[in-house]
Structure formats: structure tokens, C-alpha cells
């Protein structure tokens, strides 16, 4: 048995008693140029949606076109859940559902990473600590757990996580600073 402490022991919940402040943008990883061109990119759910609304920043779109991408089963699961949630009576549902299903079809299972059991435990502790320090409600807690799962999946895959979820990723990076992330804003 390994002498390494289990990953979920990396975080000491008792050390985190204050509400974390969001950091200014210049302290967050928004710089595309800082991401090595040989890095694998793991896509957060926002990327699949923003790309298909033509609202990705051009420099990020160029990187996506030329770099290796991998998928998180959690992010793909969020897309799949949305297909189920779409209102069948809404006139726009068939076309939106088709776009989302095409996206899932195109994501190769061999390039899709599921979080390990160790990542699940660590993500659960991270999201539990943040739920307490940030006074999150039940819906926000569930969402943050998914964010933490994608965040740690990227780390396990050795990939850079690409996300527009600036606030939650900021909090996660404050607890777990070593994870590689690229943040972006939607274009208007």
C-alpha cells in the first residue's frame, strides 16, 4: 500500500473558516498565450455551448482548432442532462436537442476522461468546504461538485481545463492552486 496520503487528505477543511474573496482578473489565468501549444485542452461545458453560439474569443477558437482536446465525462453528462431537461413542447427543442446530440456523438469515448474514485473524494471535499465557506444553497452545491469534478479530471488527464466558469474556478484554484486552467469570456 502506498505511503502517499490519499488525495482527499490534501485539503484540511478545518483550515478554511473564512469566506473566500474572488480575485481580480489580472490574478486569474486568462492568457491564451501562456498555454503551451502542445498542451491537451479539456473542455468545460461552457466551451461546447459558446462555440456553437459562435461566441468563443477568436484566439481561443484558433487554439481549439489546432490543439489536442479531451473531454470530461462530467461535462458531457451535463450536456446530456440538458437534452433530457429541454421542454418537449417548446418549438425550438428539436433543433437544440439535435445540436447537443451531435456534440455528444462527435466526442470520441477514447478521448473522454471520467474522474477516478480518488478525484471524486477530493472533489467532494473541495466542494463541501466551499459550500460552507461561501454559504452556498443546495443547487449551487451540486453545481460546484460538478465543477470540482471537471477541474480535477483535467488535472488527472494532464490537461489544461478551458472554462468560462470564472467564479467557481477561482475558488477551486484558491484551494487547489496547481491545476492548469485557461479562463475566457464570451464575445458579444
Amino acid at each position: 500500500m502506498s505511503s502517499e496520503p490519499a488525495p482527499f487528505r490534501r485539503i484540511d477543511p478545518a483550515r478554511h473558516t473564512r469566506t473566500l474573496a474572488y480575485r481580480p482578473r489580472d490574478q486569474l489565468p486568462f492568457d491564451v498565450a501562456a498555454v503551451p501549444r502542445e498542451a491537451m485542452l479539456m473542455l468545460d461545458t461552457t466551451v461546447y455551448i459558446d462555440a456553437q453560439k459562435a461566441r468563443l474569443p477568436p484566439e481561443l477558437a484558433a487554439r481549439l482548432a489546432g490543439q489536442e482536446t479531451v473531454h470530461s465525462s462530467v461535462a458531457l453528462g451535463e450536456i446530456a442532462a440538458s437534452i433530457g431537461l429541454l421542454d418537449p413542447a417548446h418549438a425550438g427543442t428539436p433543433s437544440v436537442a439535435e445540436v447537443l446530440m451531435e456534440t455528444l456523438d462527435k466526442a470520441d469515448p477514447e478521448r473522454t476522461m471520467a474522474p477516478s474514485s480518488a478525484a471524486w473524494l477530493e472533489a467532494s471535499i473541495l466542494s463541501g468546504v466551499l459550500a460552507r465557506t461561501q454559504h452556498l444553497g443546495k443547487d449551487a452545491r451540486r453545481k460546484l461538485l460538478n465543477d470540482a469534478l471537471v477541474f480535477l479530471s483535467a488535472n488527472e488527464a494532464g490537461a489544461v481545463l478551458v472554462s468560462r466558469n470564472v467564479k467557481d474556478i477561482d475558488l477551486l484554484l484558491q484551494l487547489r492552486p496547481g491545476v492548469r486552467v485557461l479562463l475566457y469570456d464570451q464575445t458579444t
Partner: protein
Amino acid sequence: MAQPSPKAVTGGRSKRPAALKLSAFPTPRVRHALTFLSAKGILGQAGSRKVSARLDPGLLEAARAKIGVDNDTDLLTAALAIAAGDDEFGGWLVTRGARLPADFELEF
């Protein structure tokens, strides 16, 4: 001059190739493609196949310089890995255009 046998030119099987060493390929794109093909079980089959082709020397040298390998086996392996195992998802995604309504947000 004797002509090579059809078997030698078009694909007679010979001994198992040495296991691919990713470190032989300096281009990340090639390494990622090989890793993907290996995960799919496409690489590592028994035997190897000898191929012969007449190629433009300028093309060969340009490809060799871009991929950064010395020998023809590594060069063709890299080129075929990109052809068979290159990741196309990012390029596909960013050229889809505005298929979703501007106000669409995931419900989950």
C-alpha cells in the same frame, strides 16, 4: 535488375516491429495521435507490413523537417498517425457556427 516481389512491395508481413517509442517523435500532435491509436487497440498488432512508394523528394524533406524525425519509418509512422488518429474535435467544434440560439443556456 531484379524486380522486387509483389509481396515485398505491397505488404508481405514480417517480424513484429519494435514497440513505438513516443520519445522518438518530438511533435506533440504525433505523440497524441499515437497514444490515441494505441488506446483504441489499433497499434501493437502482430507483425509489420513493408510498404514501398515513390514520393516527391521535396515533400519528403519538408515533412521530415516539420515532424522532426530522421528515418523514413518514423516519418511514415508519424504521417500515418496524423492521418488516422489526429484529433478533429476542436476544429469541428469551432467551425460549427451559431447553431444554438444566442440566449440558450444549459439548464443543468
